[in-house]
């Protein structure tokens, strides 16, 4: 509850704070009289900060949920969207579309990344479910790692021969909320919203899966159908999130652990906690990056790594985290 109350606070901060100093009065005014020919301060507030805040909340929630779903599905504490091939698939699609098809521009990146992420996730699941015993957690984790490594290798190979692609890729690979405005936000928001709702409905299945395959079967849960459905939701969430912001690591990995620490192992509670925590974490990190960067900005991916990781390490060290 308290956490959910923090969301509007952060959203307010996100609109009022940034690398450009704008007086609070002017921020509020900007909503009153905004037109095409308004001042730079107005443009910054309405056309830069508002979409950025919405995107930050949505993507953070999506990544937090997706990570929780994946860790529940694979019963592996190391599972995060990155390991499931999402980032690698998106990166491959972005770089491939630049070098092989010659298209460029952020809108193309977003579309390519979405398709790439979905395709890679589907591939990971298909490979992981081949063989006698279906999609076991270990096989899925290994399949994800394998596909990630393979795609990353090909991506790097393409990049090294194309300077222009390299130039674009090194900024894309950090993960950022900056520079993503209305068209992109409205483009990915429907996918994210549908994904969020579906994800919240998966709690009962994940609780059953957590008991082990046999117990889950005993409860009348179809393992295959559950896994396929959950994986689809993960693909949707991560695909849209990565498409919009580039590969943002860490949120999907850490939020489930923190949520489990706060509310215990019941996925029906875990999932809403993960949603709120993810949104708070991503937007909070983004605000910090904007305030700390001087006239520039630190990309949110950088802030998460540099500030979030030590926090997580301390949490692991001093709190007793539940094992999966």
């Amino acid at each position, binding site marked *: 509850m308290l956490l959910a109350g923090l969301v509007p606070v952060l959203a307010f901060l996100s609109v009022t704070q940034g690398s450009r100093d704008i007086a609070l009065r002017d921020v509020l005014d900007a909503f009153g009289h905004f037109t095409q020919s308004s001042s730079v301060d107005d443009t910054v507030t309405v056309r830069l900060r508002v979409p950025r805040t919405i995107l930050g909340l949505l993507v953070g929630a999506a990544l937090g949920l997706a990570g929780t779903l994946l860790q529940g599905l694979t019963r592996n504490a190391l599972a995060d969207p990155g390991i499931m091939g999402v980032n690698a698939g998106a990166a491959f699609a972005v770089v491939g579309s630049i070098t092989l098809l010659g298209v460029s521009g952020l809108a193309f990146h977003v579309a390519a990344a979405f398709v790439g992420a979905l395709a890679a996730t589907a591939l990971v699941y298909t490979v992981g479910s081949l063989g006698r015993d279906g999609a076991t957690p270990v096989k899925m984790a290994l399949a994800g790692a394998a596909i990630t490594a393979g795609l990353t290798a090909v991506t790097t190979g393409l990049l090294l021969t194309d300077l222009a692609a390299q130039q674009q890729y090194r900024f894309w690979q950090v993960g950022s909320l900056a520079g993503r405005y209305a068209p992109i936000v409205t483009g990915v928001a429907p996918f994210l919203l549908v994904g969020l709702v579906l994800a919240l409905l998966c709690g009962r299945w994940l609780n059953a899966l957590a008991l082990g395959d046999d117990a889950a079967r005993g409860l009348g849960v179809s393992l295959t159908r559950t896994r396929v459905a959950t994986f689809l939701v993960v693909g949707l969430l991560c695909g849209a999130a990565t498409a919009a912001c580039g590969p943002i690591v860490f949120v999907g990995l850490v939020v489930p652990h923190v949520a489990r620490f706060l509310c215990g192992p019941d996925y029906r509670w875990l999932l809403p906690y993960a949603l709120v925590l993810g949104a708070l974490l991503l937007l909070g990190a983004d605000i910090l990056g904007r305030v700390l960067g001087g006239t520039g900005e630190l990309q949110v991916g950088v802030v998460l*790594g540099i500030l979030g990781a030590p926090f997580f390490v301390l949490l692991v060290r001093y709190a007793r985290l539940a094992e999966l």
Partner: protein
Amino acid sequence: MSVPVLAVDSAPAPTQPAAAALRRTRRARRIRAGLVPAVLLAVAALLALLTLCFGSVRLSLDQVVAAILGAGDNDAVDFIVRELTGPQVKAAVCVGLALGAAGTIFQQLLRNPLASPDFVGISAGASVAAVAGIAVPAFAGASLPVLAFVGALVTAAAMYLLAWRDGITGYRFVLIGIGTAAFCTGVTGYLLTRTSLTEARAALHWLTGSIGQAGDTENDVLLVALLVLVPVLPLLQRMLRTIELGDDTARGLGVRIEPTRLVLIGAGVLLTALATAVAGPITFVALVAGPVADRLLGSARGGIVAAGAVGAILCLVADYVAQYLLPVEVPTGVVTGAVGAPYLLWLIATTNRRGMGG
């Protein structure tokens, strides 16, 4: 679904006469445990010789052997073999051995098939240091291998200390490793966006990992470390078996679990750090060598030498492909990923549950 054609082992059926079956299985396992690493090492040695002959300048076997033995009378051949291709092959073999061995040690120690050194932060630590060496003007001129080595060791030490609370649990170590890796990735990403384009390119090359990256001194250090490790290998192997039993059982047997774990982590970290210093963070070798070796070893799985040999073969092949078979030369890491990944996928698709340790 039919039984996979190439699955090597199937657990003995419980209905067989127990004693005879057990004896047979044990004997088969012993033979396999000795034979498989020997054959793999032989394959690696042959591949090494082949690579020396079929470089960008083709040499005959006589010339190569003569140059290696120091009996060559042709300066050009001597230069190529002794200064260029020889050290390259030596580095490929050593890096492969080190990564393969370190990978299987970590995977068994932390009981997670994803817990290879590239996933739990050690390579990431080396990468930050090396990219800083390339990109931050203050470090200009510093030796990248030394930076990478120090980076890996400092990261590993920090991870061990942070994970220590009345001992180390594998789970906590893995989680801290992930956090550390995320931290290092964040810093590396930051450095990459701030560099000039040429430096970013240099960093990208280093980050992909390439055999031949470091000079002869670093190669020799790695070689010496591997040689030092040979006599203690049986000891390490026994330690791994103990750990595999689980903490409580091991303690029950009177084994002091923490020193054992520290020694194993230390060995794995040292090998990874040295290999990364020599070649950069070559992906995938450490992850894949263990599972592949286990497939060959059957019930005798977990062998460090076999995993090392698989790593060496993978590095040799990848290095050859990267240098000579592609239209432009690419870093070795590109090929280990592109070649290793489909192979691992095939393994996953055809394996039974036991074979993958899951």
